[in-house]
């Protein structure tokens, strides 16, 4: 029995496919974890520095220091936008400070400075007053239990209140501390690993059951003495080991990445030290909390794996599989959509999704109403996991022990009674796109690009909006009229500026109240907020009139975006999609045949030269099709988002291209840009073709292509220019720009 178990484990970890899968999971985890964005407005460095500074202050001064600065920068920020804020004395002082030239300390804008201080302030307050917070909760519970609106002593509400109080009572005496915890918060917010661990689990079940069923080795195993129940138990054990190994792998990747980027030395402090976890009802350190979350995730994945292991033993495994997928999706939907307080509230937590989301559900003490008894969500999740783990394991073992697991492949071919045409080009296209699913790759690629393009927003600053308004104003004007317009506006602004100075003076001399000062100053400022846009306009006017008469006034924001001068790396993302699709399609075109198939092909008349030519031809066409899938949606949006006058304006109208000698329009530049992208898609396709022809074995081809092609692009996407400067330059339009200038 033990021997059988170890043998099954060896099967899982020794085979080529599982090893490749582990690699894939590892790189996917690395990729997604690295892609996971820091979700605060200010950079981590600023936060770390502030934390350091705060920690060097005596404890009693921290709160005040943070509060003061948060208020100050909030005032600066609102004033900058010309928004009215409360007209008290303090605000007036801040406005005056702003007028005399205010500066930020940690970041580069008033808004980010404000968010930095206010977040840190909150974090500090939470940790400082933790014991107060707990006694508040307890006191409130006491008070509420005395109120008769919450029913009699045995009502659900009363029990809920006393349970909650009991849960938090334990935490009395816990001492969370203020520390640099943003990295830990970041660590707990990783979202990709839930999907990855489930994928890994289902894959494990697939290798253990479906793959053996497919290849027929199950039949041989089943016919042996221990080949039924004992084998099923061993497989169950092996799947669990597989899930655990994957959980540990994912956790390790997460920890390593976070530790490399952030300070996680606070990991042994109570979890309540993290912002957002002040209400966490468990007396755990962050490290313990993370381990428990991972363990729950692992068991949840195991439950899912056993469900599919069971499904894979069924006669109608396709219907079963679909049902399994629907069941899993429903569980996620239940967790996302159900209201915990409703009558179905228990189902919000009675599923694997809640178990996977322990880093969310554990943030606060929540109960659900189960037959008038309050049950906390942790208990609900653990109960679910135990019940369903047992249920699915039992179902799997019984089904495995008792069923005939023959295998019939699914046929997705369109049934026709006609003999297909014997045209080599057509047959190869059919093989790659229909039989091997290349068409599905194309459709998926198109969907992803369309989704991206539709959901892609340009990030506007205030100055961009005002500039666009100015462009509307001057649209019909001649150049000299524009000059007059700019002069007028400038005069208007300097008048306003004078008024502002007078106002400052009056306030400083005590001639007006702080209330009317704030009101008047805000009104003036709301006008003055346009001034940076006018500066841009007048600078462009100077350039047109003095240096480059062919240039024009254009709305740069959207053009910058599509030319990828906005640092969003969108172009690298779409290159990655393109390359991924190319690898999948071109690989099946040139490799993936068994030795016998290759022999059969190579001893036919056209199996060498002509086939190669036709495949190359298809390779080029596929590359073009894949390019179109990624580029077409973008082009449509590009054309619809930009004014045609902007597209026909000379390239020099953009600040990036000042001093350019060539005589081309912005629109033409876009054409060149897309041609370059097409060329790079073709080049990549031919490279993959070359690898496929020389290496032949498909798994090796895919690994090689990933290393040579996908890895550099993925790292350029993740790390920017530092990682692979050459690729980065190639992908970006830098190449084109350098060529032109």
């Amino acid at each position, binding site marked *: 029995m033990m021997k059988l178990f170890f043998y099954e484990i060896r099967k899982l970890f020794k085979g080529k496919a599982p090893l490749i899968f582990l690699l894939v999971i590892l790189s996917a985890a690395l990729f997604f974890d690295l892609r996971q964005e820091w979700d605060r407005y200010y950079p981590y460095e600023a936060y770390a520095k502030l934390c350091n500074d705060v920690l060097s202050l005596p404890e009693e001064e921290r709160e005040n220091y943070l509060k003061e600065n948060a208020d100050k920068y909030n005032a600066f920020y609102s004033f900058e936008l010309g928004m009215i804020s409360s007209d008290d004395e303090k605000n007036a002082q801040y406005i005056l400070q702003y007028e005399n030239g205010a500066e930020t300390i940690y970041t580069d804008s008033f808004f980010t400075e404000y968010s930095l201080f206010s977040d840190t302030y909150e974090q500090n307050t939470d940790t400082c007053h933790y014991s107060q917070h707990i006694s508040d909760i307890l006191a409130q519970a006491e008070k509420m239990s005395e109120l008769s609106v919450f029913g009699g002593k045995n009502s659900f509400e009363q029990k809920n209140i006393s349970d909650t109080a009991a849960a938090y009572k334990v935490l009395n005496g816990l001492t969370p501390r203020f520390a640099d915890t943003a990295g830990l918060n970041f660590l707990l917010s990783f979202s990709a690993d839930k999907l990855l661990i489930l994928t890994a689990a289902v894959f494990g079940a697939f290798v253990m059951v479906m793959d053996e069923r497919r290849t027929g080795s199950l039949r041989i195993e089943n016919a042996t003495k221990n080949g039924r129940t004992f084998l099923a138990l061993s497989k169950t054990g092996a799947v669990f080991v597989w899930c655990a190994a994957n959980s540990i792998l994912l956790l390790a990747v997460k920890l390593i990445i976070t530790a490399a980027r952030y300070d996680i030395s606070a990991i042994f402090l109570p979890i309540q030290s993290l912002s957002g976890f002040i209400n966490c009802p468990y007396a755990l350190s962050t490290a313990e909390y993370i381990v428990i979350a991972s363990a729950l995730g692992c068991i949840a994945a195991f439950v899912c794996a056993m469900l599919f292991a069971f499904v894979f033993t069924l006669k109608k495994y396709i219907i079963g599989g679909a049902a399994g997928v629907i069941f899993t999706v429903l569980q996620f939907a239940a967790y996302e959509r159900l209201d915990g307080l409703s009558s179905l509230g228990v189902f919000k937590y009675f599923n694997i999704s809640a178990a996977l989301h322990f880093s969310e559900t554990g943030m606060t003490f929540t109960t659900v109403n189960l037959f008038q008894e309050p049950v906390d969500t942790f208990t609900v999740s653990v109960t679910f996991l135990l019940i369903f783990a047992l249920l699915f394991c039992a179902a799997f073992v019984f089904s495995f022990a008792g069923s005939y697991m023959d295998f019939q*492949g699914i046929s997705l071919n369109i049934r026709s009674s006609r*003999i297909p045409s014997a*045209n080599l080009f*057509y047959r190869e296209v059919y093989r790659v796109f229909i039989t091997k699913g290349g068409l599905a790759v194309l459709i998926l690629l198109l969907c992803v690009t369309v989704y991206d393009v539709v959901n892609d927003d340009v990030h506007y600053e205030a100055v961009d909006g005002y500039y666009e308004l100015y462009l509307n104003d001057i649209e019909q004007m001649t150049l000299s009229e524009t000059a007059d317009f700019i002069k007028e506006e400038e005069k208007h602004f300097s008048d306003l500026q004078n008024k502002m100075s007078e106002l400052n003076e009056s306030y400083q001399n005590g001639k007006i109240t702080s209330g009317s000062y704030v009101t008047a100053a805000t009104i003036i400022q709301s006008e003055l907020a346009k001034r940076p846009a006018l500066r841009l306009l007048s600078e462009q006017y100077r350039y047109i009139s003095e240096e480059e008469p062919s240039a024009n006034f254009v709305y740069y924001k959207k053009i910058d975006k599509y030319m990828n001068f906005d640092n969003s790396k969108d172009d690298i993302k779409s290159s990655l999609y393109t390359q991924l699709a190319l690898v999948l399609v071109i690989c099946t075109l040139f490799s993936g045949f068994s030795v016998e198939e290759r*022999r*059969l092909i190579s001893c*036919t008349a*056209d199996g060498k030269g*002509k086939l190669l030519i036709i495949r190359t031809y298809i390779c080029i066409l596929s590359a073009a099709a894949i390019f179109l899938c990624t580029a077409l949606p973008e082009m449509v949006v590009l054309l619809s988002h930009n004014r045609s006058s902007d597209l026909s304006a000379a390239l020099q109208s953009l600040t990036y291209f000042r001093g350019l000698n060539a005589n081309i329009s912005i629109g033409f530049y876009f054409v060149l840009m897309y041609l370059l992208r097409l060329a790079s898609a073709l080049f990549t396709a031919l490279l993959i073709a070359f690898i496929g022809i020389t290496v032949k074995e498909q798994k090796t081809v895919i690994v090689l292509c990933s290393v040579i092609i996908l890895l550099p692009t993925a790292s350029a996407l993740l790390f920017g220019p530092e990682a692979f400067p050459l690729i980065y330059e190639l992908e970006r339009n830098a190449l084109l720009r350098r060529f032109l200038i």
Partner: protein
Amino acid sequence: MNNLQLKNVSKHYRSKLALDNISCEFSVGIWGFLGPNGAGKSTLMNIIAGILKPDGESVVLYNETPVPQLGRSYRSVIGYMPQQQNVFRDFTGAQFLSYMAALKGIGSKAARVQISELLQRLELTDIAHRRISGYSGGMKQRILLAQALLGAPEILILDEPTAGVDPKQRVIIKNLIKEISEDKIILLSTHIVSDIEKLADRIVFLKDGRIVQQGAADELLAGTELESLYMRYFGDE
């Protein structure tokens, strides 16, 4: 008259010697290869089909010209049926045949005619539009044979064409081979002695990569059963 000539053909798999300096000549007719497992039958057939490279000094001539020089024109006269059955499992039978017809450069119209005729002769019409992965062993064998026969090749290389095929289908296959054997060189290996007895004009005995005996079937079989002949050569192990 077509003729195929082997001169000093050897084949090493790493250090394992699979074919040991074989020289012989095949003229039009049906040639049956007999020998125990691992004797080198498949290796020899693959070399003749041009899909396995023999050792350096070996020469294969077709009508006095070295095969590598002939290239495409040699490939367009051979039909090859491999011993291994798991090929193109994702295709339907009809798709597989069309694919092979395309590779053999048979025109689309001619291909359609040939394919439907072969499907009919080998009683595959009913299952032609099912995927090969769902075929039984004998069905796979027949679809592979059909593929080899596409384009009426002058040299047919059939590696165990009747293995796993039921008696009725074996008769059909044998009749078909016999029928088309006129002015073709047909090389076929099998472990079913009676097939060789009925079909082959000449018999070649292979053992440990060497030809131990060859000759015209009626001469070799004069007065003896093939089975006892086989035992005489290979039975002493």
